[in-house]
Protein backbone atom coordinates (compact mmCIF):
# COMPACT_ATOMS: atom_id res chain seq x y z
CA UNK A 1 0.00 0.00 0.00
CA UNK A 2 1.25 3.43 -0.87
CA UNK A 3 0.23 6.52 0.98
CA UNK A 4 1.25 10.09 0.48
CA UNK A 5 0.33 13.09 2.55
CA UNK A 6 0.18 16.46 0.90
CA UNK A 7 -0.22 19.52 3.05
CA UNK A 8 0.00 23.06 1.91
CA UNK A 9 -0.93 26.43 3.30
CA UNK A 10 -2.50 29.24 1.37
CA UNK A 11 -1.44 32.73 2.40
CA UNK A 12 -3.60 35.74 1.84
CA UNK A 13 -2.24 38.28 -0.56
CA UNK A 14 -1.69 41.65 1.10
CA UNK A 15 -0.55 44.84 -0.58
CA UNK A 16 0.54 48.15 0.87
CA UNK A 17 -1.54 51.18 0.03
CA UNK A 18 -2.26 54.70 1.08
CA UNK A 19 -5.97 55.31 1.48
CA UNK A 20 -6.82 58.88 0.58
CA UNK A 21 -9.46 60.27 2.92
CA UNK A 22 -10.72 63.70 1.98
CA UNK A 23 -9.54 66.47 -0.26
CA UNK A 24 -8.01 69.93 -0.15
CA UNK A 25 -10.86 72.26 0.65
CA UNK A 26 -10.01 74.39 3.67
CA UNK A 27 -6.48 75.56 4.40
CA UNK A 28 -7.31 77.25 7.68
CA UNK A 29 -9.18 74.79 9.86
CA UNK A 30 -8.13 74.01 13.40
CA UNK A 31 -4.38 73.27 13.40
CA UNK A 32 -2.00 71.37 15.56
CA UNK A 33 -1.71 74.46 17.63
CA UNK A 34 1.03 75.11 20.11
CA UNK A 35 0.96 78.87 20.31
Amino acid at each position, binding site marked *: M*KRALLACAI*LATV*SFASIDVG*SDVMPNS*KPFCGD
Partner: protein
Amino acid sequence: MVVLDSDINSAVQIESISWKRSTIGVDSGIFTNFKIYMGYSTLDQLGDTFSANYIQGTRTLVYSNPSYQVVAGGPNNWFTTTLDTPFWYSGNNNLIIEFEWSTGAGSIYAWHWAAGPNRAIFGAYGSDTSDGSENSIPHMMINGPVGLQSETLGSIKATFGGE
Protein backbone atom coordinates in the same frame (compact mmCIF):
# COMPACT_ATOMS: atom_id res chain seq x y z
CA MET B 1 -12.28 62.78 14.80
CA VAL B 2 -14.37 60.01 13.31
CA VAL B 3 -13.58 58.58 9.89
CA LEU B 4 -16.46 56.69 8.35
CA ASP B 5 -16.07 53.13 7.14
CA SER B 6 -17.42 54.32 3.79
CA ASP B 7 -14.56 56.83 3.57
CA ILE B 8 -11.94 54.13 4.16
CA ASN B 9 -13.74 51.38 2.29
CA SER B 10 -11.22 48.69 3.16
CA ALA B 11 -9.66 46.67 5.90
CA VAL B 12 -6.18 47.98 6.62
CA GLN B 13 -3.35 47.50 9.06
CA ILE B 14 -2.69 51.16 9.83
CA GLU B 15 1.04 51.69 10.18
CA SER B 16 1.18 55.44 9.68
CA ILE B 17 -0.99 58.44 8.93
CA SER B 18 -0.13 61.46 6.82
CA TRP B 19 -1.44 64.96 6.59
CA LYS B 20 -0.99 67.61 3.94
CA ARG B 21 0.29 70.92 5.19
CA SER B 22 -1.75 73.89 4.07
CA THR B 23 -0.50 77.19 2.78
CA ILE B 24 -0.56 78.99 6.13
CA GLY B 25 1.08 78.46 9.50
CA VAL B 26 4.62 77.28 10.22
CA ASP B 27 6.60 74.36 8.86
CA SER B 28 7.46 72.71 12.18
CA GLY B 29 6.34 72.58 15.78
CA ILE B 30 6.96 70.72 18.99
CA PHE B 31 4.26 69.16 21.12
CA THR B 32 4.52 67.84 24.66
CA ASN B 33 2.92 64.61 25.84
CA PHE B 34 1.66 63.93 22.33
CA LYS B 35 -0.45 60.79 21.99
CA ILE B 36 -2.63 59.21 19.33
CA TYR B 37 -5.41 56.78 20.12
CA MET B 38 -7.46 54.75 17.67
CA GLY B 39 -10.62 52.75 18.15
CA TYR B 40 -13.97 51.83 16.71
CA SER B 41 -17.26 53.72 16.80
CA THR B 42 -20.79 53.08 15.68
CA LEU B 43 -21.42 56.83 15.48
CA ASP B 44 -21.32 59.01 12.37
CA GLN B 45 -21.44 62.12 14.56
CA LEU B 46 -19.47 62.48 17.77
CA GLY B 47 -21.00 63.32 21.12
CA ASP B 48 -19.58 65.60 23.82
CA THR B 49 -17.93 62.94 26.00
CA PHE B 50 -14.73 61.71 24.42
CA SER B 51 -14.72 58.16 25.79
CA ALA B 52 -18.41 57.57 25.09
CA ASN B 53 -17.83 57.78 21.36
CA TYR B 54 -15.82 54.57 21.29
CA ILE B 55 -17.18 51.08 21.17
CA GLN B 56 -16.32 50.00 24.68
CA GLY B 57 -12.88 48.47 25.04
CA THR B 58 -11.58 49.47 21.61
CA ARG B 59 -9.69 52.70 22.48
CA THR B 60 -6.02 51.87 21.87
CA LEU B 61 -2.88 53.94 22.35
CA VAL B 62 -0.96 53.72 19.07
CA TYR B 63 1.57 56.54 19.42
CA SER B 64 3.17 58.30 22.36
CA ASN B 65 5.98 60.84 22.40
CA PRO B 66 6.82 63.05 25.41
CA SER B 67 8.27 65.69 23.09
CA TYR B 68 7.15 65.28 19.51
CA GLN B 69 8.77 67.52 16.92
CA VAL B 70 6.59 67.62 13.84
CA VAL B 71 8.43 68.62 10.69
CA ALA B 72 5.68 69.40 8.24
CA GLY B 73 7.82 70.89 5.49
CA GLY B 74 6.69 73.50 3.03
CA PRO B 75 3.16 74.36 1.93
CA ASN B 76 1.26 71.39 0.44
CA ASN B 77 3.88 68.93 1.66
CA TRP B 78 2.67 65.60 3.03
CA PHE B 79 4.05 64.77 6.47
CA THR B 80 3.72 61.45 8.27
CA THR B 81 3.52 60.03 11.76
CA THR B 82 4.54 56.38 12.00
CA LEU B 83 2.66 54.63 14.77
CA ASP B 84 4.45 52.85 17.60
CA THR B 85 1.84 50.13 17.40
CA PRO B 86 0.02 49.42 14.11
CA PHE B 87 -3.76 49.38 14.41
CA TRP B 88 -5.82 46.76 12.65
CA TYR B 89 -8.94 48.36 11.15
CA SER B 90 -11.33 45.67 10.02
CA GLY B 91 -13.47 47.83 7.73
CA ASN B 92 -16.48 47.33 9.99
CA ASN B 93 -17.76 50.30 12.00
CA ASN B 94 -16.18 53.74 11.91
CA LEU B 95 -12.65 54.65 12.95
CA ILE B 96 -11.92 57.18 15.68
CA ILE B 97 -8.53 58.88 15.62
CA GLU B 98 -7.88 60.87 18.79
CA PHE B 99 -4.96 63.25 19.31
CA GLU B 100 -3.91 64.83 22.56
CA TRP B 101 -1.07 67.03 23.67
CA SER B 102 -0.58 69.17 26.76
CA THR B 103 1.46 72.12 25.49
CA GLY B 104 3.36 73.02 22.38
CA ALA B 105 5.03 75.60 20.22
CA GLY B 106 4.21 76.31 16.61
CA SER B 107 0.89 76.03 14.80
CA ILE B 108 0.85 73.60 11.90
CA TYR B 109 -2.18 73.82 9.65
CA ALA B 110 -3.28 70.96 7.46
CA TRP B 111 -5.75 70.94 4.60
CA HIS B 112 -9.24 69.95 5.76
CA TRP B 113 -12.42 68.92 4.00
CA ALA B 114 -16.10 69.37 4.80
CA ALA B 115 -16.97 65.93 6.17
CA GLY B 116 -20.31 66.67 7.86
CA PRO B 117 -21.69 67.68 11.24
CA ASN B 118 -19.79 66.79 14.43
CA ARG B 119 -17.09 64.78 12.72
CA ALA B 120 -14.51 66.11 15.17
CA ILE B 121 -14.62 67.40 18.72
CA PHE B 122 -12.01 69.31 20.68
CA GLY B 123 -11.41 70.20 24.30
CA ALA B 124 -8.92 71.12 26.98
CA TYR B 125 -6.08 68.70 27.76
CA GLY B 126 -7.27 66.06 30.19
CA SER B 127 -10.91 67.03 29.90
CA ASP B 128 -13.53 64.29 29.66
CA THR B 129 -15.83 66.45 27.57
CA SER B 130 -15.43 68.67 24.55
CA ASP B 131 -15.60 72.42 24.22
CA GLY B 132 -17.00 72.24 20.72
CA SER B 133 -17.28 70.31 17.49
CA GLU B 134 -16.05 70.61 13.93
CA ASN B 135 -17.67 69.86 10.61
CA SER B 136 -14.35 69.37 8.89
CA ILE B 137 -11.53 66.89 9.37
CA PRO B 138 -8.01 66.75 7.95
CA HIS B 139 -7.28 65.45 4.49
CA MET B 140 -5.33 62.31 5.40
CA MET B 141 -3.60 59.30 4.06
CA ILE B 142 -4.05 56.10 6.02
CA ASN B 143 -1.06 53.95 5.18
CA GLY B 144 -0.52 50.24 5.55
CA PRO B 145 -1.19 46.79 4.18
CA VAL B 146 -4.69 46.62 2.73
CA GLY B 147 -7.04 43.70 2.49
CA LEU B 148 -7.09 40.47 4.37
CA GLN B 149 -4.87 40.01 7.36
CA SER B 150 -1.69 38.15 6.63
CA GLU B 151 -2.62 34.84 8.03
CA THR B 152 -3.03 31.31 6.98
CA LEU B 153 -6.46 30.98 5.50
CA GLY B 154 -6.46 27.26 5.72
CA SER B 155 -4.67 24.16 4.76
CA ILE B 156 -5.32 21.48 2.33
CA LYS B 157 -4.54 17.97 3.27
CA ALA B 158 -5.00 15.22 0.83
CA THR B 159 -4.34 11.63 1.37
CA PHE B 160 -3.75 9.45 -1.57
CA GLY B 161 -3.95 5.78 -1.05
CA GLY B 162 -3.69 2.78 -3.21
CA GLU B 163 -2.77 -0.77 -3.23
